[in-house]
């Protein structure tokens, strides 16, 4: 009403009340500007965070490409191809399980290759380090790599010796089973392929940006602060995150959805007034307190439980490490239950009463109504609740940093369900663990940002799908 032109009264009756104006705006406009400004600030901050993440993280791929180029040009990659052979020899030894004299001869057979590796490795490492500390304009030592690859005949001879040694072991050990012989044969037949790779290796082959990206997203090793070569592969961390999230959801979804269905459909008013606040109270516990509880109590208790004799049939029981994916998964389930419960309960409560009443009118019993009418109608809300619970659990840091065991390796899925008792490391945990030690702008710093970016995109996708599912299947309200 203020601001509109007012009718002109005779002087005695003119209104002289000045309308309060703050910064030139009337009070309503000021309030609107204030709240609108808050919303704008929130959106701007979100945009800035996204831009900042992308800016810091994207520099990683260019740096990784330069790093991989240096890895190749200094001959370190060549030596690693040889080293893979040494590792395979060790793996074979473990698989064969030889004993006594055969075992000693097996271990001795690899010694010439190991000595050659040591020599070439030191040389390649020196070339790489000289390149890293080289001043601009000084000559590079990459020319020496040709001399390393020129050692190929010597490598071939060493492989020949190794083949002969393994052959002698096979012949002079009558106690070998046919499958052990088969494994040895298979190992020996792989030598040809390795030698071909070594022969075809080219130090000057360019590294593409796609390869740099692939080395991150599909790399199976995350190794930093190494004297040899750093690898930034996210697969072990990603599988660790997925494993603890799967365990957490496996526990939280039945508990959370079951509690939601019970509280919203079956419980009486008094039960509801006790259970609902209790579950929502769990959300108030700080996650670092839960992590501490995990180290101090839960890890020990679960391990003692696994040592109980009549539980030994469970996959993965008994186990030795207190800090593993199971401990972290249980605590994360505790964190996820309130989220899933609250949202699922809201979804169930917003099913129109007409559906319930119609079902009763048609003669259905209460449990039939719940199972066949109400839960299916609220299904989209419950799925959305589970997705949001997953988003919460994947982003949780303190609990996994303290309780998941911090083993940076892809969990051994050949143990079947027993994989849950293995220690793992997660994407959130690695950021929290390593962020204190990285200097700004280094490749490690940027690699951690790309891991953060990956988490951000995962959480964004989960939230977006949760919203979409909720919106698409929302029932029209029947009044």
């Amino acid at each position: 009403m203020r601001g509109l032109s007012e009718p002109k009264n005779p002087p005695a009756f003119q209104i002289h009340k000045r309308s309060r104006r703050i910064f030139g705006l009337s009070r309503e406009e000021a309030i609107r500007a204030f709240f609108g400004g808050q919303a704008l600030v929130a959106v701007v901050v979100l945009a800035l965070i996204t831009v900042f993440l992308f800016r810091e993280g994207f520099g990683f791929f260019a740096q990784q490409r330069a790093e991989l180029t240096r890895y190749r040009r200094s001959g370190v990659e060549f030596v690693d191809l040889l080293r893979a052979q040494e590792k395979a020899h060790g793996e074979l030894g473990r698989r064969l399980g030889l004993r006594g004299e055969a075992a000693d001869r097996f271990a001795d057979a690899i010694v010439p290759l190991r000595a050659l590796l040591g020599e070439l490795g030191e040389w390649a490492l020196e070339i790489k380090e000289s390149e890293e500390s080289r001043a601009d304009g000084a000559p590079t030592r990459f020319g020496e790599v040709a001399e390393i690859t020129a050692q190929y005949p010597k490598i071939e001879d060493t492989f020949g010796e190794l083949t002969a040694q393994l052959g002698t072991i096979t012949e002079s050990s009558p106690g070998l089973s046919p499958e052990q012989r088969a494994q040895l044969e298979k190992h020996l037949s792989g030598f040809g392929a390795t030698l071909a790779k070594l022969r075809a290796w080219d130090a000057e082959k360019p590294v593409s940006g796609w390869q740099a990206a692939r080395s991150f997203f599909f790399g199976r090793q995350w190794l930093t602060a190494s004297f040899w070569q750093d690898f930034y592969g996210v697969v072990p961390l990603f599988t660790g995150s997925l494993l603890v999230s799967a365990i957490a959801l496996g526990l939280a979804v039945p508990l959370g959805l079951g509690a939601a269905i019970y509280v919203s459909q079956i419980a009486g008013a008094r039960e509801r007034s006790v259970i609902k606040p209790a579950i929502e109270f769990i959300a108030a516990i700080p996650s670092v307190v839960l992590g501490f509880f995990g180290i101090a109590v839960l890890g020990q208790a679960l391990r003692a439980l696994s040592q109980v004799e009549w539980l030994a049939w469970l996959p993965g029981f008994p186990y030795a490490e207190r800090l593993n994916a199971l401990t972290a998964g249980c605590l994360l389930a505790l964190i996820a239950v309130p989220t899933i419960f609250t949202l699922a309960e809201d979804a169930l409560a917003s099913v129109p009463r007409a559906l319930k009443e119609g079902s009763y009118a048609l003669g259905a019993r209460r449990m039939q109504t719940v199972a066949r009418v109400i839960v299916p109608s609220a299904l989209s809300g419950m799925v959305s609740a589970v997705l949001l619970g997953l988003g919460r659990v994947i982003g949780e840091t303190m609990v996994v940093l303290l309780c998941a065991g911090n083993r940076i390796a892809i969990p051994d899925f050949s143990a079947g369900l027993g994989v849950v008792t293995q220690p793992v490391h997660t994407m959130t945990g690695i950021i929290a663990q390593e962020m204190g030690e990285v200097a700004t702008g280094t490749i490690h710093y940027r690699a951690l940002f790309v891991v953060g970016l990956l988490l951000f995109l995962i959480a964004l996708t989960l939230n977006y799908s949760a919203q979409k599912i909720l919106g698409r299947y929302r029932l029209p309200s029947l009044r």
Partner: protein
Amino acid sequence: MKNPLRLLSFLAAGFALTAIAPALQAQKLVIKGSDTLGAKLVPTIAEDYRALNPGRSFEIAAEGSSTGIAALISGTADIGMSSRRARPAELSNGAAKGVTLRPLIVCYDGIAIIVNAANPITTLTKRQVEQVFTGDLRSWDDLGSGAASGPISIYTRNTASGTYADFKALAMNKRDYAPSSQKLAGNEQIVAEVAANPNGIGYVGLAYINAPGVKVVAIEGDLPSKESVLANRYPYARPNFFYTNGEPQGEAARFIDYVLSEAGQQVVERVGFVPVR
């Protein structure tokens, strides 16, 4: 606001307080870095120093040697504790930012290999230590008679730790740790996990070996102690450093002088490290 003057006076008081705050903080010494030094030794010495010189305050954050050097380079710490030497990459990074990393040896330390108290093994060769921690040997049976049986659970520090890097250089021939090793944040955590796991093995500084549930393994007959470290008999001995930006000045210099004095070195010995003299 009924009275705009009241608002102005509040703001003025706020500005005045923020001006005083830096002056109050002038006496605070920020020390960041190694968990080996910063978990027990430096807080103890800091307490003694504070008893002698009231009015000083310390902020000690022990998250690993690498964090200390990084903090010194970025200017957020006065002294960086480190249980390893700074790497060439860190020195050049510091030089690029105008920071000269100057090391000062404050004590010596031995890295002790610990196993669970129930494990019958008492001695290991250097080769066996390398094989265990790089993952060449994966089971206690492979260490010969006199050991427990079962898979070996390796507990190490994480990449922020100087002890992690020192151990790699001294014991593992610069090879990488086994992928099955679990990376823990500090010495106390390693002690706790090895004490709880009968298959566990790990390494800690000399000051942490007297905990219940763990026992120290001799390396080719030498147990880690002050005598064997000073006599250079124990193979995994290393100096621990304080890094400063150039020559230490002011409060930092006074504190470092106290650490290197007779009183400070007595505390070093009491906590379990080896004094520089």
